[in-house]
């Protein structure tokens, strides 16, 4: 085969391959989607984070407005600390509350933010004070059984 035809085919091959990588990145992956370029981070302490993972979404009113960037254990207070990266275009009041929720019955866990009434806004490095930990199914069931037993005792 001639040199120019080979060059043409190889060029097409390389373009197709790069195009496939681009399609994977933009259409299949999340490179084009919710990637937060301008962000500020705040931290929140939880007594139990349940199954929350790094990169879990942070939602407010159900809309993704950030991601969990880091989770670590505070050895002094014996609490879990999650640092959240929030989109800069959204601001929240200083008394915003954060709670760990589960999407669906068995879905992934995310952090839900609910803004409060304070006129001061959360800034870079601030800490969310009002938090609600993840609901652990075992303790919930335990509590339910305990209550049932207590009710039964009263009925007699």
């Amino acid at each position: 085969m001639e040199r120019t035809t080979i060059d043409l085919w190889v060029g097409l091959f390389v373009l197709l391959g790069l195009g496939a990588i681009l399609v994977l990145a933009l259409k299949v992956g999340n490179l084009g989607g919710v990637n937060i370029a301008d962000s500020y981070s705040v931290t929140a302490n939880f007594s139990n984070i349940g199954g929350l993972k790094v990169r879990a979404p942070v939602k407010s009113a159900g809309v993704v407005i950030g991601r969990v960037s880091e989770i670590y254990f505070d050895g002094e207070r014996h609490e879990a600390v999650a640092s959240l990266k929030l989109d800069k275009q959204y601001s929240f009041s200083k008394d915003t509350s954060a709670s760990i929720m589960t999407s669906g019955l068995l879905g992934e866990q995310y952090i839900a933010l609910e803004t409060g009434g304070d006129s001061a806004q959360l800034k870079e490095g601030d800490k969310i004070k009002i938090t609600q930990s993840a609901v652990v199914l075992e303790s919930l069931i335990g509590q339910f059984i305990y209550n049932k037993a207590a009710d039964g005792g009263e009925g007699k």
Partner: protein
Amino acid sequence: MPSRFVKGVRRIGHRTINSLLRLGVASRFFVLVLLHSGSSFRRPHLIIKELFSTGVLSLIIILVSGLFVGMVLGMQGYDTLQRYGSEEALGVMVALSLVRELGPVVAALLFASRAGSAITAEIGLMKATEQLSAMEMMAVNPIARVVAPRFWAGVLSMPLLAAMFSAMGVFGGYLVGVKLIGVDEGSFWSQMQSAVDFQQDIVNGIIKSFVFGVAVTAIALFEGYDAPPTAEGVSGATTRTVVTSSLAILALDFVLTAFMFRGEG
């Protein structure tokens, strides 16, 4: 007079020494290829010619298999997921299994049997017909002229082929899942996009296919270069290329997966 036991132990020892020797020769060969790569980059048309025969000619089989693997994933995935009422997760399942595992691995297996065997047969035949010795007589280094361009062509084309395989597979899953079965199109793509991470999944998949490309091409080249210069020897070497590189791909995949995806839920 040695007993049967001593003979058996001797045979084991002989086999061990032989395979160690072969491993050593293969490693030296690999280092030689890397050392002589510079001259093949100075003459890129050699690599381009090999890119044509390893990459472009593997296109059809890669694209068609990718499409069908994706379509089968779509059907089987739907069958399982709809039992749990979560058929919207079909996109996630198809995309993650393709990008993380099936794309690199199946593309590399196809590449080993399509391009790897051809490389081995070509170089083995060159050796059998003494073309390689003739080059040496003319003071042309056969490793720099014949082996290194094929190595780099294989290494470069493998990630591209794997990416095309995955993209075609996702398209196949989309065709079956959305167009044929009727999963909601919006949730198919949006769930996929929120679950597939560029760094974690796509880049790791590309790294995997790159490693497989190095392994398959190096094995194919060594088997060809090392083949006994007979018709039988070349055919045996071709078979060994496919078997060894398939096993190498699967073993490497396990090791790479253990490193890349551990510590994740």
